[in-house]
C-alpha cells in the first residue's frame, strides 16, 4: 500500500529537477468476450459447471422479473420503476460474491443483487407500488442489515463508510458494498466517502455501475476523466475497470476485492462497464436523447446472450433447458405477483408507526385525528 508523502519530506528530499512524483495505472478485466468466447483462463470458481449454469439462471430470472415489473407499471399496478435491463451480469455477480453477513448499500437499479441476497420478489414489487413494507425485508433469508434502496444520488456512500468503520471497529470480517452509478461519481459525497474509506483503510468496496447514462446525460458529459475507476486514485485506494456485461469477470474481480477488504487489505473501487438498455425509469423516454444506433450496438453486448453462447458451445445448456428455466422463473414471478397483489393495504396511521421508536406524546393528536377520520 502506498502511503501519503508529507510535503516537507518531499521538499527536503534530494530530488532531480522535474522528477516523476507518482505514477498510477488502471486495469481492465474481461474473461468472456461479447461472442461468448474465453479471453482468459477460466478462474477457479467456475471449474464447477453448476456455478456457470446457476449464474445464467439467476440473470435470466432477473430479466424476467424486471420485464414483469415494467408490465405491472404499464398496467397501473406499480408506480415508477427503474428497469435494470442489460445490467444483469453486474448485479448478479455482486450478489453472488458478497457474503451473507456483508452489508449492501445500493441504488434503485440493483434489483438483481437484492434478489440474490434474499430480498423477496414480492417485497420489491411492494416497494415500487409505494409501500414502505417493501424495505422491511421480512423474509426468513432476508439481509436484515442491508440498507434500503438509496434514491438520492451517492448519499449512501458516506453511510457505507460508517458501516465499514463499525465492522472494522468490531473486528468483524465483513465488508460493506456500496453500489453507485456513473452520474454519482460527479458528486462530492462519492469523493468524501472514498477519501474517508482510504484514510481509515476500511473494508469497503465501491462498485460504480457505469451504464453510460445518468438519465439523459451521457458519461462523456459527466466528466473529462478517462475512466471513472481512476477517481479512486485521488483517494489513495485502488481502482479498476471490469467488463460489466461479463458476469464471470465481475464475479472474479469482486471476489478479489471482497477478499482483500475482508482480510485488512482496505477499500477499492470497481468500475463495471455496462449499458442501460432500458429508459431511466418507466417515466422516462430515452428516444428523446439517445439514438437507435447506440442502443443497437449496446444490445449486441447483451450479458445473457454472451454467457448462453458460451454454455451452449460447452454443451452445458440447451434450448429445452432454456425453455424449462424460463417457465420455472415465470412461475416464481407470477407467484410473487399474486403474493404482492394479495397484501392488504396499510392503515393510514402506519405513517406514525415507525417515525420514532416511540411516538412522542405531542404527535398523538395528529395520529388520532387520522385514525378518527378513517373511522368516520
Amino acid at each position: 500500500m502506498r502511503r501519503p508523502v508529507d510535503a516537507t519530506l518531499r521538499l527536503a528530499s534530494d530530488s532531480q529537477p522535474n522528477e516523476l512524483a507518482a505514477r498510477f495505472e488502471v486495469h481492465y478485466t474481461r474473461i468472456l468476450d461479447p461472442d461468448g468466447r474465453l479471453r482468459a483462463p477460466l478462474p477457479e470458481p467456475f471449474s464447477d459447471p453448476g456455478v456457470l449454469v446457476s449464474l445464467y439462471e439467476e440473470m435470466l430470472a432477473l430479466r424476467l422479473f424486471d420485464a414483469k415489473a415494467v408490465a405491472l407499471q404499464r398496467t397501473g399496478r406499480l408506480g415508477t420503476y427503474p428497469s435494470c435491463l442489460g445490467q444483469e451480469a453486474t448485479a448478479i455477480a455482486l450478489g453472488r460474491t458478497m457474503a451473507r453477513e456483508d452489508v449492501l448499500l445500493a441504488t434503485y437499479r440493483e434489483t438483481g443483487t437484492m434478489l440474490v441476497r434474499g430480498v423477496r420478489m414480492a417485497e420489491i414489487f411492494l416497494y415500487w407500488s409505494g409501500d414502505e413494507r417493501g424495505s422491511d425485508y421480512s423474509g426468513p433469508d432476508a439481509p436484515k442489515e442491508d440498507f434500503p434502496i438509496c434514491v438520492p444520488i451517492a448519499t449512501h456512500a458516506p453511510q457505507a463508510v460508517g458501516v465499514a468503520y463499525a465492522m472494522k471497529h468490531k473486528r468483524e470480517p465483513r465488508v460493506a458494498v456500496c453500489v453507485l452509478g456513473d452520474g454519482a461519481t460527479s458528486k462530492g459525497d462519492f469523493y468524501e466517502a472514498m477519501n474517508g474509506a482510504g484514510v481509515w483503510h476500511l473494508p469497503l468496496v465501491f462498485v460504480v455501475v457505469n451504464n453510460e447514462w445518468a438519465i439523459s446525460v451521457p458519461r462523456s458529459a459527466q466528466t473529462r476523466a478517462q475512466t471513472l475507476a481512476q477517481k479512486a486514485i485521488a483517494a489513495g485506494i485502488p481502482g479498476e475497470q471490469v467488463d460489466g456485461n461479463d458476469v464471470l469477470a465481475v464475479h472474479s474481480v469482486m471476489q478479489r476485492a471482497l477478499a482483500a477488504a475482508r482480510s485488512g487489505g482496505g477499500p477499492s473501487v470497481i468500475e463495471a462497464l455496462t449499458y442501460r438498455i432500458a429508459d431511466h425509469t418507466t417515466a422516462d423516454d430515452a428516444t428523446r436523447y439517445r439514438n437507435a444506433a447506440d442502443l443497437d450496438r449496446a444490445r449486441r453486448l447483451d450479458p445473457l446472450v454472451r454467457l448462453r453462447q458460451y454454455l451452449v458451445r460447452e454443451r452445458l445448456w440447451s434450448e429445452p433447458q432454456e425453455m424449462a428455466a424460463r417457465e420455472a422463473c415465470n412461475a416464481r414471478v407470477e407467484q410473487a405477483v399474486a403474493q404482492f397483489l394479495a397484501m392488504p393495504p396499510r392503515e393510514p396511521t402506519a405513517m406514525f408507526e415507525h417515525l420514532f421508536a416511540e411516538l412522542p406524546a405531542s404527535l398523538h393528536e395528529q395520529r388520532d385525528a387520522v385514525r378518527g377520520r378513517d373511522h368516520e
Partner: protein
Amino acid sequence: MSEITLVEAVTQALAHELQTDERVMLLGEDIGANGGVFRATTGLQERFGAERVVDTPLAETLIAGMSIGLAAQGMRPVAEIQFMGFIYPAIDQLLNHAARLRNRTCGRLSCPMVLRSPIGAGIHAPEHHSESTEALFAHIPGLRVVIPSSPARAYGLLLAAIRDPDPVVFLEPTRLYRLAKEEVPDSGDALPLDVCFVLREGKDVTLVTWGATTRETLAAADALADEGVEAEVIDVATLAPLDMNTILESVAKTGRCVIAHEAARNVGVGAEIAARIADRGLLTLLSPIKRVTGYDTIVPLAKLEPAYLPTPERIAAAARETLEAA
C-alpha cells in the same frame, strides 16, 4: 465539588457515555489532539483512544453520513460539526436519511446518532459562525432538536440525546459555553427530552425561550419582578417534538405570552408556538402574543452583533405591552 461551564458539562457527558457504553464514539473535525475548536472533547481521545474519538477528514457530508452508517450498525455515534455555518451539507443526510431510516424500513434499521453543533451569535466570531438556524432542523419530521441553556441541562440533555434510539440534533449556544458555571454532578442521570423546563414560576406573563436567549429572558424576568410583575420563564429545550402542554398550561394561568429567540423571526420556531397557542389557547389569552427575536436580516458581523440579539430590555418591554393590553 467544583463548578463547571456549559462546555465542560458537555465534555463530562461525553466522557460519561464513552466510559459506560462501548458503543458510543465521537467523530468530527479537530476533536482529537486538539480537543475541538471549543475544547468540548478535551482529553477524550487520549483517554478513549483514536478509534473511538475520531478526527475525520474535513468533510461534513462524510461526518453526517458516516454517523448514519455507524448507528445502523449498532454504534452510538456523537458527531461534532465545528460551527453551525458548516452544518448545511449535513442536512441532506439528516433529512433524506437519518430522520427517515426507521420509517422507511418499518423499524428494521434505526439511527441512534447525535449531531452536535455550536449555535448562535455573541462571541465576536468570524462570518458564518453566528447563525441560529434551529428552525430548519425542527421542520424535519423524525428528528429531535435539543438546545440546552445551562451546564446542568447541557449535561443531562446530552446524556438523554446519546441514549435516545433516534437521531438528535444537539445545538450548544456558543455564547453560554463559558459564560457561567454551576455544580453539575457526574451522576449519569439524564434529563427528559420532549419536555419544557419551567425555570421560574409566575402568574402575570409567560416568557417562552430557549438556548442563549434564556439568559436575557431570566434577566427580563428579574427586571419585571422589580416592577411587581411575576413572569413565568419556560425553557423549551426540545424544539422538536414540541411540548405544548407545559406552555399552554402556563398561558392558561397568566393569559399573556412573550416568545423570545435569537433566530430570525420569519418562520422561526416562535411562529409555530404562537400558532399552536392561537389554536388551543386563544380563549385563555388576555392580550396578543408578542415575539422578541433576531431580525429578518443576515446576522451582522461582530460590530453590530449587540444590536441584533434580543436584550432583556426588549423582552421586558414586550412583556409590559402584554400587560398594558389587558
